[in-house]
Structure formats: structure tokens, C-alpha cells
């Protein structure tokens, strides 16, 4: 609906309010915030305080419009990631690019789209290429404002009588982006020249229509072209629905009220977050580092520059000050490198924001006000703020996801201190294994796919209950693993089985939610390139208060298998891998087996009847496992979520078989065993100062795995503060290095 504009030509000078340019408006907005500490200098929220019913009504109108836009647009898409998994969201922005309200869905992108809008404003798009009614912009450049290439933004300006009154934005995750290898997040190449189709905040449509040459460029450059083009239409439709709702709202309440409302909503958002921090958090300093391994020294499928073993260092610190400000710092992070897991500042801010929506501010009224109430320090030159803008970022998530697990654990400590035990979570597990790839598919077509079972991991233990099994992702609170049949339609891999994986839950007084696993077999395809992604040598999350992390991952594939012969003979075949120490795959299938901790692989070739085990993660645990209810341990074993032989060494629970054949806890024997275990713990533990003395010698001797030494060296080089911290802790000389 373009009838709310006076002119529809491609250039309108000074489209901002009161005859200003957008750049002027953004600069004034930043300046007045710096001067007053209030968004737009608003000290008095006149509508909110004077007409609260009207204020809430406007918000509900807009929020309803956004949720409706997502639900309607979702059905235009043919992409399973969007339609089945719901990987899309929409948001409404101020003229300067602050989000006012958002839909449900993958809301991590609400802030990254704000960055893209501000980029266009700061780079004077108002003059060239122009910002006019009916214009359609697209962006998937994370250096501008995005998480990674697969997340594609549509942004449209919303005009009212020649004046820009805001922006609507929508994002979907694409199945393929035309990278050097198939899949939406391919990797193994050295830099962004392998990342695929990059659309850098580009004008891709006018008069509410995509430019045909743009769509043709997309068709020519991505493998899953139908999905890409349909998703373009999905996002544009959603943005138009949002715009319609804005028009309806203005017709009802008037332009000036609408303008005041969007300003007040952002300032209210800022105040709400500060209020939430003061209400539920505790001032002080928190430390929660995380790590992830990249074991590529011997992986010949990756670029020579990337062919080395690397450890990512995310030394997260959180500081909450008396004024309610929450600041995160990654000072001490190690350097970016020639892989695809580098992360621009925009997704780091987006990740902080999305974690706030799931923790401190789990309300539908969250918006970019949170951005004004927080800060994040990202050291230049590190993996989370590269000083080379041609780095590859196709799978930014691989570093980003683990790096924020410590944020949730730190909040858990805050909640514990304040007594809000019901809010405590041991944090989330990371979202792998990520299976993606492509080749000539089962319909004889060149294709690419990304399997989004990853959106369902076990959740972290709560203070008062176990985590939930296979149901959520940190980047999308509405996790859905999708129907097996849908994935089999899209991917030339049959599901031999999908089920829960024993011993994936992090142990604790309350355990993490159980993870899942699938066993896939390539079928009706000559060959495919397949990736697997996840940690294998480390834990990329952690438990809290004595809880343990959930499982790490592994790689278990069989090439040149005898599955065809097994099927012809109607012989038993594995449906899951199960206990890796007693692998069903190893026991039942012959072939060339790959079974190791190199879970993170480059693009490896697979053929028909090859097997691919896809192991997901369980949530971290909370509290001492010896305090877990013994009957719950027996229940976990009976449910197949805990292998029987681990009930005693982890939980000190002695099991006996009941009359019904099910295992039950022998309470008296368990009590005796647990007392003995506590005693044994102290017998084999040492005073921490003795451990420090021993470990210091190891550091001094450099008797540490090469990638870990390189990680320390890189962190010390990038941060004098972290270098001093490391040297001081181990009482090392001021010039110590590895």
C-alpha cells in the first residue's frame, strides 16, 4: 500500500522528521543519549504515564501485526527451515534504526537488522541509492549487521506523507548461499571469497517489487534457488504486512502520537532492563570463560591456511554496576583466523540481546532499549571483532554460541544471590552436531541442505528441576526439530532412526535435559559432500554449583558400508549408535569406519549407503550429583537416558532389580556408597595451592598441547590486561611467553 505517500519517485530529499536528513536524526539521537543518558533525551514518558491504556493498545496493535506477519509469511515459504522450524522473524524500527517491537521466532536478528539500517543511514543511502517509498533493501553481510551469510534480511522504509516514520525488517535462514561448498554455512575455505552470495545492504527492489535482475543474480548464485527466491517473497510480504499495521495504527491514533510512542517504547525498554537488573541481579564482577576446539591439522579437505589445530578462547566477564548497567567483556579473546567462525561485532551484540530475551527480560516488550542499557567490549583483532573485514563468517555461530554460555551461568549466580531460585539455569548446551552438505540429490538435481535438528538440544538443569530433553536452541526459543519425513524429502539421507542419547545429560543434583541422536544413510545419490560440526575434544558449555557439562561430540561414519546387503538379506541393522563404548554401528555394519573425536570436519565426500551418525547435545547439570534423588537416577536408567554402569560412579546410586523387572535404588546401600565416595573424594583431592604449584611447573615447562599454547600466546598478544592476569596468576616473569 503506497497510497500513504505524496511521492513515489526514487529520490526524496531530506526524508527525516522536520526536514532533517536521516544522518542528522541518527547523530542527534546518539548525541542526546550521550548527554542525557535517556533515549532521545526523554525524561518523562508522557503517553505511557499519562495514557497508559492507549500506550498498551498501540503496543498490542504493533506486536499483533508483527506476530501476524510472521505467521502469514511463514506459509509463503517453501523452505523447511522457515516453514517447519520457524527460522524467521520480523521487527519494527524507528527511523534511526532502533527496534520498537518484534515478532516471535529467531529474534537474535532483531538487533542485527538495526545495525544494517544504521549502516545505510551512516553511509548516506538517503542520497545514493536513495531511500524512498516502495524501496526494498536486502542485507546478509555480517560486517554491516547480520550473524552470517545464511541469514538474509529484507528491510523496507515506511513513509507517511513523504516522511520516513520507520522501517520494517524481516529475516530468514537460507538453505544454501552459494558458497564454495553446498550448505547454508559451508566452511573449510580461508576467507570471505568462499562465503557465497553477499548482498551488502543493497537496494534490490522498487515500488514494492524485487528487481528482476537481482532475483536472477540470486538464482544464478545459490544452489537452492527456489527456496531463496520464495523466501525473498516471504520476507517482503511480512514487511508489507507490518507496514500495513503501522498505517492502521497511525490512522487510529494519529501521526504525532505514533511518533511519540515509538520514542517512548525504546526509552521504556532501556529503563525496563535497568529495572530488571536492579530487581533480579547482583552488582559485582563475574567470570565465565568458554572454549571450543578446531582440530584441523590433518583435515585435507580444508584450505592450507586453515589446516591447523586451534582452540577458541572466549574469556567472558560480566560487570554489573550500582546504576544497573550490565557490561560484558571479551577482552583476552584470541585472534581471528583463516576459517569461517570469525564473528563481527553485530552478531555478538545480537547474541547478548537474544540471551536477555530468554533470561532477564523474557517479555514481549523487549526492544533495542536493552542496547542502551548494556555494553559489550570486543577486542579489535580478535575472533569477535576481526581487524580484517574479508574474514569468512559463514559459521560465526561455531564460536559465538559457546562464548555466551557463561553469560547464562553468571546470571544464575546473580539469581541465586537474590533468592530468585526459580529463574536459575545451568546454561544451554551448544547446538550441534550440525549436518549440512549437498550434491546431486535423490531427484537427480544439484542441491544443498542444512539439517535443523540442531534447534532441539537438551536444556540446562534448573535449580528446582531437571532440564528438558531435546527441545530448544539458544538462538531460537521456539525450537522444533522438524519431521523426519520432511528432512528425508529434502535430503538424500534416510533416517535409520532418531532417538534420545544416553549419558548426554550433564550430571548434577538436577541433571541437564537429554540430547538426541539420529543415524542417517545416504540413499539414491551417487555422492554428497557432508559436513559435521561440533566440539569433540572439549566441553563447550559447563555446569554450575557442582554440576557437570553435558556431552561432547564425536564423529562416527561408515563409508562403503554393507547396508545394501544387510537390507537385501533382511538382516538387522542399527537404528542409532547408542553407547559409543558398545556402538551398534560398529557391531552391526561392515565398511570403512571413521570413529574419532574430530567432530568438526571440513567438507568430506560420502557415497550411497554410507552411514552418518549425528549426535546432539544434552544440557549441563546443576549441583553435586551425590545430592540427586536416588529414585530419579533409577528412573533415568529405566528411561534409557543413563547407562546403568554410570549410576554408581557418577551418582553413588546402588541399583537393584525390582519385582517388575525395572531397576530401583537401594536407599540404604546408596547412602553408604555416597558417604564412602565423599570420603574418597577428599582422599584423592589436594589443597588448591598444591595444584597451583604443580600446574605452574607445567606452564613453565610449556608442557601443554600446541593449540592451547597458541591460544594463550594469542590472548596475551592481543590483551595486555589478560597477559598480566595470566602471568600474575602463575607467578611468572613479566616477559613470560610460550
Amino acid at each position: 500500500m503506497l497510497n500513504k505517500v505524496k511521492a513515489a519517485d526514487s529520490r526524496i530529499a531530506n526524508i527525516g522528521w522536520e526536514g532533517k536528513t536521516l544522518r542528522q536524526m541518527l547523530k542527534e539521537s546518539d548525541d542526546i543519549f550521550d548527554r542525557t543518558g535517556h533515549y532521545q533525551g526523554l525524561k518523562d514518558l508522557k503517553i505511557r504515564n499519562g495514557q497508559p491504556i492507549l500506550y498498551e493498545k498501540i503496543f498490542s496493535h504493533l506486536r499483533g501485526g508483527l506476530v501476524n506477519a510472521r505467521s502469514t509469511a511463514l506459509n509463503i515459504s517453501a523452505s523447511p527451515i522457515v516453514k517447519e522450524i520457524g527460522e524467521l522473524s520480523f521487527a519494527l524500527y524507528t527511523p534511526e534504526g532502533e527496534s520498537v517491537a518484534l515478532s516471535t521466532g529467531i529474534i537474535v536478528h532483531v538487533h542485527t537488522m538495526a545495525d544494517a539500517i544504521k549502516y545505510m543511514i551512516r553511509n548516506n543511502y538517503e542520497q545514493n541509492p536513495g531511500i524512498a517509498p516502495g524501496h526494498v533493501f536486502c542485507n546478509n553481510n555480517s560486517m554491516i549487521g547480520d550473524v552470517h551469510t545464511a541469514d538474509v534480511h529484507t528491510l523496507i522504509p515506511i513513509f507517511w506523507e513523504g516522511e520516513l516514520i520507520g522501517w520494517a525488517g524481516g529475516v530468514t535462514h537460507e538453505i544454501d548461499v552459494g558458497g564454495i561448498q553446498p550448505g547454508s554455512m559451508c566452511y573449510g575455505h580461508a576467507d570471505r571469497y568462499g562465503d557465497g552470495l553477499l548482498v551488502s545492504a543493497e537496494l534490490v527492489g522498487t515500488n514494492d517489487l524485487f528487481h528482476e535482475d537481482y532475483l536472477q543474480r540470486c538464482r544464478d548464485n545459490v544452489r537452492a534457488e527456489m527456496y531463496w527466491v520464495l523466501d525473498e517473497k516471504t520476507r517482503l510480504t511480512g514487511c508489507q504486512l507490518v507496514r500495513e499495521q503501522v498505517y492502521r495504527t497511525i490512522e487510529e491514533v494519529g501521526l504525532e502520537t505514533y511518533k511519540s510512542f515509538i520514542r517512548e517504547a525504546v526509552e521504556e525498554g532501556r529503563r525496563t532492563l535497568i529495572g530488571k537488573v536492579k530487581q533480579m541481579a547482583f552488582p559485582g564482577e563475574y567470570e565465565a570463560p568458554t572454549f571450543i576446539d578446531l582440530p584441523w591439522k590433518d583435515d585435507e579437505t580444508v584450505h592450507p591456511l586453515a589446516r591447523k589445530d586451534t582452540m577458541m578462547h572466549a574469556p567472558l566477564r560480566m560487570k554489573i554496576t550500582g546504576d544497573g548497567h550490565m557490561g560484558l567483556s571479551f577482552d583476552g579473546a584470541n585472534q581471528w583466523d583463516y576459517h569461517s567462525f570469525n564473528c563481527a561485532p553485530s552478531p555478538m551484540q545480537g547474541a547478548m540481546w537474544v540471551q536477555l530475551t530468554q533470561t532477564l527480560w523474557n517479555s514481549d516488550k523487549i526492544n533495542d532499549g536493552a542496547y542502551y542499557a548494556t555494553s559489550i567490549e570486543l577486542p579489535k583483532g580478535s575472533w569477535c571483532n576481526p581487524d580484517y573485514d574479508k574474514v569468512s563468517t559463514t559459521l560465526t555461530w561455531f564460536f559465538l554460541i559457546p562464548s555466551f554460555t557463561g553469560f547464562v551461568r553468571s546470571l544464575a549466580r546473580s539469581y541465586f544471590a537474590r533468592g530468585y531460585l526459580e529463574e536459575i539455569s545451568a546454561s544451554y548446551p551448544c547446538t550441534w552436531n550440525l549436518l549440512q552438505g549437498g550434491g546431486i540429490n535423490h531427484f537427480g538435481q544439484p542441491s544443498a541442505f542444512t539439517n535443523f535438528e540442531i534447534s532441539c538440544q537438551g536444556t540446562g538443569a534448573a535449580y528446582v528441576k531437571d532440564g528438558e530433553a531435546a527441545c530448544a536452541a539458544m538462538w531460537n526459543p521456539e525450537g522444533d526439530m522438524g519431521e523426519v519425513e520432511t528432512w528425508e524429502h529434502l535430503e538424500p539421507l534416510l533416517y535409520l532412526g532418531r532417538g534420545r542419547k544416553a549419558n548426554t545429560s550433564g550430571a548434577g543434583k538436577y541433571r541437564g535435559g537429554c540430547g538426541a541422536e539420529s543415524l542417517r544413510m545416504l540413499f539414491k545419490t551417487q555422492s554428497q559432500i557432508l559436513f559435521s560440526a561440533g566440539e569433540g575434544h572439549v566441553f563447550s558449555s559447563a555446569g554450575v554449583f557442582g554440576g557437570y557439562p553435558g556431552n561432547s561430540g564425536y564423529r562416527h561414519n561408515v563409508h562403503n558400508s554393507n547396508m545394501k546387503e544387510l537390507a537385501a538379506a533382511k538382516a538387522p541393522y542399527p537404528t542409532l549408535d547408542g553407547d559409543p563404548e558398545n556402538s551398534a554401528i560398529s557391531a552391526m555394519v561392515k565398511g570403512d569406519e571413521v570413529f574419532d573425536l574430530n567432530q568438526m570436519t571440513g567438507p568430506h565426500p560420502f557415497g550411497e549407503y554410507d552411514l552418518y551418525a549425528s549426535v546432539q547435545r544434552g544440557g549441563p547439570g546443576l549441583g553435586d550429583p551425590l545430592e540427586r534423588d536416588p529414585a530419579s537416577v533409577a528412573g533415568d536408567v529405566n528411561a534409557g537416558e543413563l547407562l546403568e554402569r554410570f549410576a554408581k560412579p557418577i551418582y553413588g546410586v546402588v541399583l537393584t532389580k525390582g519385582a517388575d523387572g525395572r531397576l530401583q535404588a537401594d536407599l540404604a546401600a546408596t547412602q553408604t556408597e555416597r558417604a564412602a565416595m565423599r570420603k574418597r573424594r577428599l582422599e584423592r583431592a589436594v589443597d588448591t595451592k598444591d595444584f597451583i604449584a604443580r600446574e605452574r611447573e607445567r606452564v613453565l615447562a610449556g608442557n601443554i598441547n600446541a593449540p592451547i599454547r597458541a591460544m594463550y600466546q594469542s590472548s596475551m598478544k592481543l590483551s595486555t590486561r589478560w597477559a598480566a592476569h595470566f602471568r600474575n596468576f602463575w607467578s611468572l616473569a613479566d616477559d613470560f611467553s610460550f
Partner: protein
Amino acid sequence: MSVSHDINTLRELKDGKLSFEKLHGLISGFKDADRFDKMVQIWQESVEWDDPILLPLAEHLFVVRKPDGRRIVKSTWGHEYCDVQENWKLHAKVFVRDTEELINELYPDKLGCDPEWMQLREYYDPISGTLLEVEVVPPGYPIVHDFKPDIDTFYREWLGRPVP
């Protein structure tokens, strides 16, 4: 909106005995401003020593005020670790799982970490042998100071009263 919960409800919350319906109500409802004081009272009831609790620091660990005014970290079982500004872990017992054999006591082979890349450091209370925290870090990583609370700011600026 002013909300307050019955102290017995909060006792049940701490002990994991709250019904799902009540727990859901606590999570989805407005937060109670008097929670901190009530929980401190509940924690104080749960220990056998008399030092007043200033702050619940972590499961089984509290910041208490000693008669001479010092603020120290103290466990449920009475072990006194250190001044609150120090890292209590430096005064605990620690057991490090840094071999495959030790890691595989808890994780089936291939579901745990590789000790060349990462170790599990288990910090125990020296009196009870209770596991208080598990660090998962690479060899040679400085011991993590999880939480250094700013008690003065909390009491004076957020609660509007002096530290007890």
C-alpha cells in the same frame, strides 16, 4: 505491582518441593521485592552456625559477617574459606580429571573431553567432601573467579540500608 510470597512457599522452592503449578506462578508472575530477606532467613535456618549471612554466594556457600566485622566465605558445614574478595576455590580441595581414565569414570568414551585439550577441576568442601563447582578449562588456565559480589553497593544503593 507489590507481590510477596509466603515463606513456606519459598522453603519449598529451595527444597525443590514446590508443585508445578506454584512454580509456574513464581516464574510467570511479578517478582517479590522481599525475596532476598526471606531467602537469607531460610538459608540462615538451614545452617548450624550463627554467623549472620550477608549473601548466599553459591550452592552451600555464603558470605557471612564474623564478630570482628570481617566478611568471609563459609560453607554449609562451617568451613571458613577466605575473605569475600578472594576466590574461595584457592582455599578448597581440588581434584583434577586430566586423564582419559578419570574422564571416562563419568563420561562414556568419546562423550567426554580429550585431556590434552581440556581438564575437569572439581572443587570440594574440605569438611563434607561435597562437590561445589566443576571447572572445564584447558590445562594451564588460571583458576576462574566465578563471582566477586559488590555487597556494599547492593545493600546501600539497591536495598537502601547499611550492610548488616
